[in-house]
């Protein structure tokens, strides 16, 4: 390793060759402000266009200022990060950026959590001397995401996420010069683009240009409606992240407080999507075994590998990009939708109320779920199985809105029957979790033997594409895992080309899985937050008394009372779905 010695603000520092000035400065405690720069360290997600010019510093012997994020250190370099020249340039650049940004901070959804706002505060901007025309564009609202690109500062993070990481290609920089902005083709609505609503653009946007559709008001109205019974389900990844919004350490598990908060907000029943996750494993695991046994018995019409289908953004992705493979993924609905359909049938019947008077709200780390619950195949006579989906961030804001002191809430438990879950369901929130949960159940169903060990370390981790082999009592089950749609695309292309060596593949659209979902508290590029959330989920799994889905007593009861067997006709009707070709069609006139 070659070391380079340099001086930054009179402090000498020695760093590895290839280090940026920005990182070298951090090493000696100098935090150079940045704006467009974004780095999820260790996850291969970096945005370094060098475009905002906020991080400029003075390098001795250089004619102009250098961007600290993109400039590599050299031996003997002398850097000043706070000279008058630098400070004036940085202030002027910031004033310029603000001069082309709406002045509606007070009512902006991002206010208080906006990187641009914090930076303006940090740089002590008190007025905007260079006022002039502002670039304005049409506002666009989709089921999940609102684009208000008047607020776009062209950091290009969303473009990087949408193209380089997710390979979705819904967004691109368009136009030139002053009117340059990031938008879908022809500035059309996201709804008409191949957007999967994964929400990764929203997760990285430093301003209010990309935000989620806020459904809180509709939920408040439903809660206030005396004719409605309102129940809520919470996704596994929410409990590992919600605390961050209340100042708790990343990775704090707040399951009990969250349940209390939801009760205080007035939900009639507080349930757990984890219950539906266990149900998903029953169906998806059975489907896997079914296909596998048919395949092993020589049926070559069976399509393998089987692909998980819990992630709605992923479903959107293959519907848009790989329609020819639409019969490959499991037909099992996502846990959110399984929950909704069971709630509006089984549970509504139990309560003796009409499904139209039962409102199902989900709390999700995800923005694609907002779209998913509106899909027409999940409506019965116009009534959706899940009425509203709120993100983790919306829930946090809702709790604050209701004057609830979250941190001093007591811990309490979910309601029954749809609140009981196993450890297998909890890890649905992280990459590798769904397949691990499926393996735990499939193993015991296939081998009819108890698992020698519950923890499948070989399936865990954060690498984008992972492979593992699990021994099913002599049968070597080959498993592939991908998170991030770009990684998923690699595995999918193998499947398409008939080169896939796997029996089963788990795919989650967001880097890290749901812990890094588009609806989670903003990590602002701090990868350690994702790791902490992941750790918390595995910890919750370990602490659970039951860790295999098929052991969930309420799941057993559900099958006994209502569904019969996994893959039964009733199951197919309520818990499975079909996929559609959403690719662009060229119709010849």
């Amino acid at each position: 390793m070659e070391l380079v010695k340099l001086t930054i603000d009179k402090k000498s520092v020695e760093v590895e060759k290839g280090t940026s000035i920005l990182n070298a400065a951090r090493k000696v405690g100098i935090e150079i402000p940045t704006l467009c720069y974004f780095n999820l360290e260790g996850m291969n997600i970096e945005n370094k266009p060098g475009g905002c010019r906020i991080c400029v510093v003075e390098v001795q012997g250089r004619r102009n200022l250098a961007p600290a994020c993109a400039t590599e250190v050299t031996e003997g370099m002398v850097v000043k990060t706070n000279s008058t020249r630098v400070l004036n340039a940085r202030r002027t650049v910031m004033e310029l950026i603000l001069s082309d940004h709406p002045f509606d901070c007070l009512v902006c959804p991002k206010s208080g959590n906006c990187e641009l706002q914090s930076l303006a505060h940090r740089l002590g901007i008190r007025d905007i001397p260079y006022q002039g025309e502002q670039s304005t564009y049409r506002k666009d609202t989709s089921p999940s995401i609102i684009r208000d690109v008047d607020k776009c500062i062209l950091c290009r993070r969303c473009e990087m996420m949408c193209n380089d990481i997710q390979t979705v290609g819904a967004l691109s920089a368009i136009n030139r010069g002053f009117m340059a902005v990031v938008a879908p083709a022809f500035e059309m609505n996201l709804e008409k683009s191949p957007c999967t609503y994964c929400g990764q653009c929203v997760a990285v946007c430093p301003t209010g240009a990309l935000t989620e559709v806020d459904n809180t008001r509709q939920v408040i109205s439903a809660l206030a409606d005396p004719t409605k019974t309102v129940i809520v389900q919470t996704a596994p990844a929410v409990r590992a992240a919600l605390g961050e919004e209340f100042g708790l350490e990343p990775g704090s598990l707040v399951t009990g407080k969250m349940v209390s908060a939801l009760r205080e907000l007035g939900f009639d029943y507080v349930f757990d999507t984890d219950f539906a996750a266990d149900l998903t494993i029953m169906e998806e695991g059975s489907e896997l075994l079914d296909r596998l046994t048919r395949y092993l018995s020589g049926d070559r019409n069976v399509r393998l590998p089987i692909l998980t289908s819990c992630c709605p953004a992923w479903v959107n992705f293959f519907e848009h990009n790989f329609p020819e493979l639409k019969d490959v993924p499991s037909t099992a609905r996502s846990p959110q939708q399984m929950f909704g359909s069971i709630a509006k049938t089984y549970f509504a019947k139990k309560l003796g109320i009409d499904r139209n008077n039962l409102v199902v709200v989900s709390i999700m780390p995800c923005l694609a779920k907002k779209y998913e619950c509106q899909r027409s195949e999940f409506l019965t006579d116009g009534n959706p199985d899940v009425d509203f989906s709120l993100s983790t961030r919306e829930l946090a804001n809702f709790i604050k809105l209701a004057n609830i002191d979250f941190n001093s809430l007591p811990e309490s438990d979910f309601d029954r029957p749809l609140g009981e879950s196993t450890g297998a369901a909890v890890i649905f929130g992280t990459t590798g979790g769904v397949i691990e949960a499926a393996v735990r159940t499939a193993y015991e169903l296939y081998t009819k033997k108890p698992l020698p060990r519950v923890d499948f370390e070989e399936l865990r981790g954060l690498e984008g594409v992972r492979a593992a082999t699990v021994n099913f009592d002599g049968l070597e089950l080959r498993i592939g895992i991908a998170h991030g749609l770009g990684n998923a695309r690699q595995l999918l292309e193998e499947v398409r080309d008939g080169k896939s060596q796997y029996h089963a593949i788990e795919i989650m659209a967001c880097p890290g899985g749901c812990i890094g979902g588009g609806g989670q508290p903003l990590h602002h590029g701090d990868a350690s937050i994702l790791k902490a959330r992941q750790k918390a989920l595995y910890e919750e799994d370990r602490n659970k008394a039951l860790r295999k889905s098929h052991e969930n007593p309420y799941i057993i009861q559900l099958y006994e009372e209502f569904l019969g067997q996994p893959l039964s006709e009733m199951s197919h009707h309520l818990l499975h779905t079909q996929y559609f070709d959403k690719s662009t069609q060229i119709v010849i006139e």
Partner: protein
Amino acid sequence: MAKYRMHLLVCGGTTCRSSESESIRNALEESLERNGLENEVKVVSTGCFGFCDKGPIVKVIPGNTFYIHVKPEDAEEIVKEHVLNGRRVERLLYLEPEKELLATGSKEIGFQKKQIRIALRNCGFIDPENIDEYIARDGYVALCRCLTEYTPQQVIEMIKKSGLRGRGGGGFPTGLKWEITAKVKSDQKYVICNADEGDPGAFMDRSILEGDPHSVIEAMAINGYCTGASKGLVYIRAEYPMAIKRLRIAINQAKEYGLLGKNIFNSGFDFDIELRYGAGAFVCGEETALIHSMEGKRGEPTFKPPFPSEHGFLGKPSNVNNVETYANIPVIINKGPEWFASIGTEKSKGTKVFALAGKINNVGLIEVPMGTTLRDVIFKIGGGIRGGKGFKAVQTGGPSGGCLTTRHLDTPIDYDNLLAAGSMMGSGGMIVMDEDDCMVSIAKFYLGFTVDESCGKCSPCRIGNKRLYEILDKITKGEGTTEDLAKLKNLSEVIKDTSLCGLGQTSPNPVLSTLDNFWDEYVEHVIDKKCRASSCKGLMKYVIDPEACTGCTACARACPVNAISGERKGPHTINQEICIKCGTCMEKCKFNAVLLQ
């Protein structure tokens, strides 16, 4: 028809004409007639000799005798002495100041050596669509010698020794660039020719490609040999259909002769050239933006380093030079680096092609040795200012350059001097302005260009230039304040200091240089609300001359904002508070009573 034994050429250039060349011609003709020579000797008027401060000029053929400062009353003496007696009129002969020697013919006149054509050596000389003509002028000899006599390193040494610097604007030493690309190890490298000449007012590269495409092809092949690249790419503006056509023909001819393709000159060296088209983006002249454009992406620049020499087209090492740079290469090989280095100044060797345009008589393409003064270029070669108006400024370097003024006229042109004067070489556009040009408007014009052409990637260029333009616009409308002048200065400096690429780093130059050189004009606009060039509409007012007004009411009826009042048959007046300066009244008035002040 008579056969003439002698011709007297009288300069008919604008400057000479204004200094009586017409009457000289008449006087000569009368004198010939008086002496009965009208059927033996003919007077012909010609285009400008580019020798205007010595005008009017008369040249006698045969003999090429060159007379300067000729007056009508000298006609008789020229006819009698020179035509009749064959004796030159010594007192009118051109005396070269530095040598104090009598010139015997116009060929030896110092001025005429001011232009040396190296890059343009074949332009206007050969048929560009015929490779044989190029070969007849020693074409492809340089390539042949490089491939058969020299090692790549030896060729690079020659280029380094010649002192050639990039003609695209930056002035980076060409040999060094080649050497860097040559040293990087890679399975594939590329030679790229930047023919995306986007500077408004510049057409040097287009002329070379249209007039001498083979010189560029030959040089690219030489570069490929030196750097170890087997593939060349020309990135050319789609707006240059003729250049594209000629280049295509030339490439095909070279392929037929085996001068491109496999095993060129049996040396084992393979080289091929492909074309890629620009699509109307000035920023693609910046090499990283150009490379992205060639890859089918938006032409957005990226931060350097890494330089294209290391990480270029498709991530492979790529040597990017512009057309004019390449056009010099074969000559350096053929005539030797020492010869090339003997031309020019200490740090800028060789010649530079300029596209002279604007308010100048001899608009055109010129090629002068580095170190020639602006005065020589404008007044000698360019033939001075059109219409006998006063010289005000010359803009070099296009939108990246600055406006230089009378006090820079004697500056020898080279990379470093122009930079020091607040402008730059750029690719070689040279626009001359006269007293009718408002310098604030000129700065605004360039900023308008930059705003249109900024790629938008970095904030200072995207937003800063827009704001600069808006402030300038405000000033030209008469709404500027002294605070705006301070803002212009700070903004310009910050944009220069913080922009991502060369476009933004130089875009404020037209503002800074006009602020420096024409500060008074800015102050007049802002404080006195006056535009001395009478070009800023916002600072002008329409008034009605009460003497000329007949009270026909045509103007009042036509005024869209009812700013004009007055009795029928009586003089009208314009209310300046209401007037929007649309000019309709002036158009409608049949009596020329509406004036613009």
